[in-house]
């Protein structure tokens, strides 16, 4: 008796948690298809707001910015993170482990701290650069360096690269450690230079980790608001920033529509990452048992 009541109450709390988690999103999605303007009263199904979305220049511009910055940041941070992992891997344990801890601090850091500190860093650098460029321009007349730099797409991209790299390292590192250390030796023994060994042996072995890392990085970039907000400047907006600025004015159901699209994009990416991970675990398991 006791047990059953226990189970029932557990189930009740679980339902409550899921309700709290998903009811708002469910509401958002439902009302993105509302024919009326209200977010409370249902006036029938319509794709009107989605249509308006695609006609809104500002939103389309921010979608473009988001995709571009996410893609570039993903590519660059994946390459940098992969080579950094290989660097970590070839270090001694005593050096590697504290460095790995340092690597994971930025991931747990509050976004707002990361964002503000990056912003301060960029501004400080721009000041120094202004002085330096002014000095260069004053001593020669051949080239004129710009003295005023501003936050914009460039700083946004740098910020995204910097917060993505730890995720790539975290997902490539384990694949390297699972790899037989002698594989690289074997490749070199058979005539490969280190670079050839990298392409022919290391890369195929750690590819699953690299792809997962890239997917996570892309998701993080698309998803990010706070860090972008502090580093993109006033002229550049990502989708998340655009949504935020729209909420400050009159709330339009377009927000529901665009948020729904963003939610679904991130959801799909996360599902892909998870499916890949469980596939790899199963493959590793059959590999181990297959050997015996």
């Amino acid at each position: 008796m006791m047990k059953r009541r226990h189970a029932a109450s557990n189930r009740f709390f679980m339902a409550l948690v899921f309700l709290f988690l998903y009811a708002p999103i469910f509401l958002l999605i439902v009302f993105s298809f509302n024919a009326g303007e209200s977010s409370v009263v249902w006036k029938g199904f319509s794709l009107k707001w989605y249509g308006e979305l695609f006609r809104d220049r500002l939103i389309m511009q921010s979608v473009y910015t988001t995709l571009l910055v996410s893609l570039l940041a993903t590519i660059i941070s994946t390459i940098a993170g992969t080579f950094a992992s290989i660097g970590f891997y070839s270090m001694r344990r005593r050096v590697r482990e504290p460095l790995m801890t340092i690597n994971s601090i930025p991931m747990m850091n509050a976004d707002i701290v990361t964002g503000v500190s990056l912003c301060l860093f960029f501004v400080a650098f721009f000041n120094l650069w202004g002085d330096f460029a002014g000095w260069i321009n004053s001593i020669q007349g051949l080239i004129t360096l710009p003295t005023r730099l501003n936050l914009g797409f460039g700083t946004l991209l740098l910020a995204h690269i910097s917060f993505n790299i730890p995720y790539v390292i975290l997902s490539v590192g384990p694949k390297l450690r699972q790899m037989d250390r002698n594989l690289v030796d074997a490749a070199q023994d058979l005539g490969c230079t280190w670079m050839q060994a990298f392409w022919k042996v290391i890369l195929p072995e750690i590819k699953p980790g690299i792809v997962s890392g890239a997917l996570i990085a892309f998701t993080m970039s698309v998803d990010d608001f706070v860090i972008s907000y502090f580093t993109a400047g006033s002229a550049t907006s990502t989708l998340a920033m655009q949504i935020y600025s729209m909420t400050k004015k009159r709330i339009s159901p377009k927000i529901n529509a665009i948020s729904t699209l963003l939610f679904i994009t991130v959801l799909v990416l996360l599902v892909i990452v998870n499916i890949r991970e469980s596939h790899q675990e199963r493959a590793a398991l059959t590999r181990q048992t297959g050997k015996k």
Partner: protein
Amino acid sequence: MSKELIRLVNCSMAFDGELVLDNMNLYFNDSEFLTLLGPSGCGKTTTLRIIGGFITPTSGEVLFDGVRMNDIPPHLRQVNTVFQRYALFPHLNVFENVAFGLRIGRTEEKEVNGKKKKVKVRIPQDEIRQRVLEMLEVVSLKGFENRRITELSGGQQQRVAIARALVNRPKVLLLDEPLGALDLRLRKDMQSELKRIQQQMGITFIYVTHDQEEALAMSDTIVVMDQGKIQQIGTPEDIYNEPKNAFVADFIGESNILDGIMHEDYVVEFFNRKFKCLDKGFAPMEPVDVVIRPEDIDIVPMEKGQLRGTVTSVTFKGVHYDTIVDFKGFKWLIQTTDYHPVGETIGIILNPDDIHIMHKSQYSGMFGDYSSYSEEYEEMDDVTMLDEEEEDGPREDGHEE
């Protein structure tokens, strides 16, 4: 006279200031099967890695055909390696694993119009295919070309690793405990198989093992190592019959080792009794280690023996009995085909050629006493031996300071 291919001159290797190889001097001849034999952690793999080019010795020289090779990277050396746990490429099938080295092709220095140029030599597809298939036949893996590495048994993976190395036609093949992961039966089969391949290809094998039986069965030359030092170099017969010190005597086969005094040439005293032997060249009254192999001892009725002892334990071993006999508190292992029950008092006779004399060494007194003999003694694996060494290490340092 066979030609010398590789020579290590005064090679030492230290990791973090800890000496792992201590002044090795060693040469390797053409078409020779040479085995580096020693307990785990004695520096065998390190020696192979120096030859393969994966590490550079802290001091000393590595010579190939008399040319200094210390700083030449592995991919430019004409040796190939069979790694301890095979290190096959899991993302490639059997054929591609074996073809790997051929597909890379080698850069060779060639004279083009009177100038030296580095030329990439590529092997045509047909030739690659032909050589790989030939090699798979040599290692008895014909028909396995398209198998995945993970679908192979340990023994088959082993053969792929050997084929992958040999297909490049190296002058020297380095093998690091290649049979270590196989079960006993397979290991015996592969031993003769490896020997056959070595003779068929006519190349030098540098073989690493901690299994003395394997070394005795396969090698032309055995190098016994311990604690980064060469203890003895010789043919299997030399090493077995004329061990240089107590370590070698104990590591290669079973040995009773006792303290003796060399009175003059051909006369040694132990157990307060003089024995004739075949050794000479020792200082008068020099304290020595005396080695007596368990299978050389003849058991006779008590009254006819030179020494008398009591049987304390008997173990049936198939061909013979391992009989432990107590001689005045010192226990010997005697291997005999006749059964002598526990408690029986027996006599033994030692012929001059049963007795082998060695100079005292740092190993004297450490081995060759069967007082604590038990079945586990033989089963003692590398891990425990390694542990013992590590425990011994600091204590020795303490003495020197």
